[in-house]
């Protein structure tokens, strides 16, 4: 392991934090945030609901209802904080793990389940939510984000774009090219790296020898590292950088320093490559508990509120469970339906052949 990657998130000067792991509000010279009481509560609600979605989806996968699930456990604050920083018109390019961001964009979690159940390769209309489809090929979406932002520039719209990616993704050519393009065209894009410190089994030092936020300086735009388990700090920092982008200040990179509490996906077995003690240490920094402590300390919420949120989460879970099981399977013809927007003879022919072939079974020809 390289000596110069700090195992700890960094010096206080390096890491923006507004809420300590104990739930104490601290101040930062560059970023601050003033929220109404109900905004604090509503952030908490989102964190809890998003976690509940994740837990339920994991359970559904175990029960065989989903083919796979990529858990966001531990990354709720990074996702809710950044998602809530977006304006409705802002456009968002996720990876495959941004269930929390999706939630803040109004995407029904059931649509996420549809994807992981294998009934769809997409799931929602990107334009309805200003939230692109999940991208599985690591890094591809960062270039899409910059292109979209170049379109925004041409439209002279008051809109920012956010591109999500992981610590592992930072090694891909596409991600680095997207930095170059954004810098050269001064595109209104925020690159939001959730550094959860793992790319499947590979720890951060397989991707970089210095903190990732410093990558930005080499391309000529600002980079900042925020405590990714601190929803307030993430919200404040993301808001500031989105606003900067909207005002023509160009791109920036936010590294949300966090930790993947679960497995990479339900197919993964992290005991093969990491220490249980690591996980224990990070449990003390839990993003949900942190905000809960704050709400208690500041008397911004009472037991009734917490119970209400839990009940809401439970109701959501029930809806997802039932909804997932009754998601209709796509019909075989859907293989062909949208391959092209305009007619295509080969697709039409193959579609007709499959229909006839399937009919031959129904007619009992076989």
């Amino acid at each position, binding site marked *: 392991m390289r000596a110069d990657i700090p195992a700890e998130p960094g010096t206080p000067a390096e890491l923006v934090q507004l809420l300590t792991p104990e739930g104490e509000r601290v101040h930062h010279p560059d970023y601050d945030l003033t929220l109404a009481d109900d905004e604090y509560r509503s952030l908490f609600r989102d964190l809890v609901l998003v976690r509940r979605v994740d837990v339920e989806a994991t359970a559904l996968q175990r029960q065989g209802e989903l083919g796979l699930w990529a858990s966001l456990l531990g990354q709720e604050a990074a996702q809710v904080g950044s998602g809530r920083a977006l304006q409705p018109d802002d456009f968002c390019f996720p990876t495959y793990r941004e269930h929390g961001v999706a939630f803040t964009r109004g995407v029904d979690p059931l649509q996420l389940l549809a994807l992981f159940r294998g009934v769809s390769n997409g799931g929602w209309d990107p334009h309805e939510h200003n939230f692109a489809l999940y991208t599985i090929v690591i890094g591809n979406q960062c270039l899409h984000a910059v292109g979209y932002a170049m*379109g925004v520039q041409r439209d002279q719209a008051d809109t920012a774009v956010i591109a999500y990616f992981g610590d592992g993704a930072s090694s891909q050519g596409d991600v680095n090219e997207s930095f170059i393009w954004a810098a050269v065209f001064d595109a209104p894009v925020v690159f939001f790296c959730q550094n959860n410190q793992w790319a499947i089994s590979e720890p951060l030092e397989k991707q970089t020898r210095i903190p990732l936020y410093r990558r930005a300086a080499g391309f000529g735009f600002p980079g900042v590292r925020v405590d990714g388990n601190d929803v307030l700090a993430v919200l404040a920092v993301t808001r500031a950088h989105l606003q900067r982008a909207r005002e023509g200040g160009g791109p920036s990179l936010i590294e949300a320093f966090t930790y993947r509490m679960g497995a990479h996906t339900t197919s993964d077995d992290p005991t093969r490559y990491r220490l249980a003690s690591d996980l224990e240490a990070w449990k003390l920094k839990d993003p949900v508990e942190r905000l809960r402590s704050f709400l208690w300390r500041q008397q911004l919420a009472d037991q009734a509120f917490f119970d209400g949120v839990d009940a809401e989460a439970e109701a959501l879970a029930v809806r997802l469970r039932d909804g997932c099981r009754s998601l209709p399977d796509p019909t075989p013809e859907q293989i062909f339906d949208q391959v092209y927007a305009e007619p295509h003879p080969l697709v039409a022919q193959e579609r007709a052949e499959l229909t006839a072939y399937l009919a031959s079974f129904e007619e009992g020809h076989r």
Partner: protein
Amino acid sequence: MSETVTLAKALTLGLRRALEDDPKVLVMGEDVGKLGGVFRVTDGLQKEFGESRVFDTPLAESGIVGTAVGLAMRGYRPVVEIQFDGFVFPAFDQIVSQVAKMHARSRGDVPMPVVIRIPYGGGIGAVEHHSESPEAYFAHTPGLRVVTPSTPADAYWMIQQAVRCADPVVFLEPKRRYWEKAPVDTGGSAPGPLFAGRVARPGRDVTLACYGPMVRTCLDAAAAAQQEGHDLEVLDLRSLSPLDLDLVTESVERTHRLVVVHEAPVFLGLGAEIAARVQECCFYALEAPVLRVGGYHAPYPPSRLEEHFLPDLDRVLDAVDRVLAH
């Protein structure tokens, strides 16, 4: 409104009209701005339409195609230029994983009206990586459309049709024919659909199916064969995906003999698909096996050898002799 122009100039005129017709059309790539592209196909367009619509990009093909995807999602219709055939591969991932799949995976919510222009093929004495024929890679990829003009008139109309197409189109430009001139009627609208082939020369004895740079070669071969009393039909496929199979089978039903010609390596080149389909559709009509004339199973050779690598009139006629011998 008929002008006699080169194929390259016809593309310029077609692109200009596409830019005029739709303010969402953008032209982007390496050196497409002030320089007008290394082949001058975008000459004058930046001056006329401004730097926001016609612009130079950083030197990164994945970036070019990847940002085009984003621009398309924002409602633009990017026409990207890949400088040479051999330089499309850094963009291959974005093309096959994103451009080709986006419409299907979004169930139609996110169309991808992106045109990827690629000067392709050999014959200009270029250095390595400047003479590739990558069409089979794209034609094998569901979700893409692949077309290639062979005449200035087709170049002028097909580029406009490609820009208007709601699907992604890989637009292959036969670079060795850039400087060939012919009259182009720029009035009215396109004389025919984009995804159909045409009979470049009617004939009775053997069908030659070809496209792009090989159309001229096959027409020359047909003229030579005429001297020897053979009447060859030459089909300019124009669209490689979808393939205008009806045009080919209709012709083969008449001639009973087919030779497919392209520059790309024969092994899994377009000729393979055409042969496979024709032997299926015209099994009883064929009087000889479908033969293929194409590049060898070897990297494109140094330019002093390209005349041996590229199908020429003699190699085409040799194959014609062989199908006629059956």
